[in-house]
């Protein structure tokens, strides 16, 4: 074996940890807009217009690179932010480096100068939700209506109580009360534009939700939060029992299919003869 595979392997490891060349604006769009606007008002996180005038660059860079660490060391300003966000901690951003954080701050400075930033946020209609919106949102959640950009249905990883007989997925959180958790339509809508948790981010980076999908979904979540719904922990048990029962049936079927399988000749012969002799 020559050294080529080892070399390749080293390259791969380096590539894995190295930041990929990316435009700051793209990066912001993919990672930040679910919680932040520039001049569009607060979402889950604060409006970032003129953020560099509110705190020192050094502090901001440190916070961007590792929010949890700044909060943990008891920084008062970070505590205040946490309170304003109702305890939602800014998630760590994958691929974040010092250079990238600086580029982001530069971008924010530039965008703050503009009369209308490109990151002003989703302009979702304020009209009241109709039952049609809720039904459409439900279909999107279940996957009956496929997402325009090919993303997986919400049901894959999330459940909303009483949405389907065996419930939804459990990889992500239960979304029954997500409307309340994220404080309403504006925040939830913004979150759905560019979901920021690592799994959601990976999944929806290539398959962003469309505005005309977000509105019904928010309507559906609003409705779900209002309905509450029964505890559906039985769904998981039912699923497991169905699996067990099916397996038992399959074993019975195997026994039937191979019922004429070879068992024993000599031992059967001898035991039979002994029985007759007795």
């Amino acid at each position: 074996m020559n050294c080529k595979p080892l070399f390749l392997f080293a390259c791969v490891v380096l590539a894995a940890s190295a930041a990929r060349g990316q435009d700051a604006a793209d990066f912001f769009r993919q990672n930040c807009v679910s919680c932040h606007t520039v001049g569009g008002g607060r979402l889950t996180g604060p409006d970032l217009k003129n953020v560099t005038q509110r705190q020192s660059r050094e502090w901001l860079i440190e916070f961007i690179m590792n929010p949890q660490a700044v909060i943990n060391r008891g920084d008062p300003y970070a505590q205040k932010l946490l309170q304003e966000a109702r305890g939602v901690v800014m998630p760590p951003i994958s691929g974040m480096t010092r250079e990238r954080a600086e580029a982001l701050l530069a971008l924010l400075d530039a965008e703050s100068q503009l009369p209308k930033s490109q990151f002003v946020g989703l302009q979702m209609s304020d009209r009241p939700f109709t039952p049609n919106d809720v039904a459409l949102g439900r279909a999107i959640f279940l996957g009956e209506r496929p997402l325009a950009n090919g993303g997986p249905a919400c049901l894959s990883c999330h459940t909303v109580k009483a949405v389907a007989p065996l419930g939804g997925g459990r990889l992500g959180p239960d979304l029954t009360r997500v409307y309340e958790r994220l404080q309403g339509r504006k925040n939830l809508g913004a979150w759905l534009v560019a979901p920021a948790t690592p799994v959601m981010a990976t999944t929806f980076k290539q398959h962003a939700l469309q505005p005309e999908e977000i509105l019904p979904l928010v309507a559906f979540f609003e409705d779900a939060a209002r309905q509450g719904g029964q505890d559906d922990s039985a769904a998981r048990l039912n699923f497991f029992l169905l699996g067990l029962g099916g397996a038992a049936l399959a074993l019975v079927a195997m026994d039937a299919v191979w019922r004429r399988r070879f068992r024993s000749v000599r031992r059967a012969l001898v035991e039979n003869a002994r029985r007759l002799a007795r």
Partner: protein
Amino acid sequence: MNVRSQVAMVFHLDKCIGCHTCSIACKNIWTDRKGTEYMWWNNVETKPGAGFPTQWENQDKYNGGWEVGNGKLKLKSTSKEKTVFNIFHNPHMPTMDDYYEPWTYDYQHLFNAPEGPDQPTARPISMITGELIQIESGPNWDDDLGGSPIYAQNDPNLKGLTPEQQAQLFAVERLVFFYFPRICNHCLNPACVAACPSGALYKRGEDGIVLVDQNRCRGWRACIAACPYKKMFYNWNTGKSEKCILCFPRLEAGQAPACFHSCVGRIRYLGNVLYDASRIEEVAKLPDEELVEGQRSLILDPHDPEVIHEARRNGIHDSVIETAQRSPVYKFVKVWKIALPPHIEYRTLPMLFYVPPMAPVMANRSDDVVNGVSDDLFHDIEQSRVPMKFLANLFGAGHESKVRYALRKQKAVRWYRRALTVGDVEMSTAERMLREADSSPEEAEAIYRLTSLCTFEERFVIPPMHREEAIQMLEDPLEHKQSVGFGFMMAPRRGM
């Protein structure tokens, strides 16, 4: 016509004394390794008897061999589709329990036992687990009817015998049995080869010996179930199948296989025959009663100029054609028609033939007086203590005519020799018997010579194998110098 050469065999059952020398010769050469202790590539069974493995002839249980359905030849145990679904657990494969668990004795105990009031004994220990075992069975557990009544009365060949015939067979004062030595039949239509999912089993084109390519065998076990004679064995240690190789290394050196060489009763004959490979499938599909004749028709006359021409065209060496002309097997099977294939109804077309036993009946018996002469000359064959039906189940697919023919001819030969040497029988009677048995004094003399006075060279006419013409011989041996050597040189160690 597609002429091929096949090393074929004849066992003369009237001469077998059941000494198991053949089995021991084979065992000591080939199957004394770990994993093969239980295998007996050559074994000698007592008939009637259940055999080894127990009741191997009961294909309702073992599902070996071929059957004809919708005009097609099919394996009973497997098919292309079944192979896929049965590969995890073969539903027709016997276990070691149906053979026997090999054992040795704790001899060390004889030396190491502490002093005590009793004589120490060497108790049996399993050769697999090394633990003490209760011996329940062995390779010839029912030798000389030793396992009766459980074993002998469960001989599958008793099917179709009347209760009176069965009672007669086992009446103590008339008890009768004969020996049935068995090796791989190196069939023309081998079920094991056709069943092997890996293509590891093959028939050698030049001499028809059926072998397992140990490097290609993956232990899918289909051959074990498919072989109706249960002469495929699973090596539980290496996870590979093994079988009788007809001592091909000895044959290639011009020597008879070990079991043939060592045979005390000189019952074994070996020689090549030329046969028509293009008609194998056609013959294997014939109805039961036509199979014996059908297989005979596959074997070609090596003196026929057209056969010789076709053989040469197929690359068969003149020296091989010459040994086919001298083959004792050709005479027994094709010319004299007194050697018959075992269980031809399995449709594998076995190339080991048996001369059915007259023994021990040579005279008839009435009112407790043994009569040497009877007016009804073939009477005692019909009234033999071994019912004709029993022999027919073994050697005639259940049909008696071919067995009767072979026995009548043998009987006539004996009467002819009696008239010639002792003289207490009329020669005219003997000659009438020969005529009625479809024979002649010349043929009787030839049968007598090859049966009784045969030399080593007459019994074993081994065709030259011409390995010097094999493609391997075209390779430069120097290419392998300082390399790994030729072929498969590593010890066959079990995989991880």
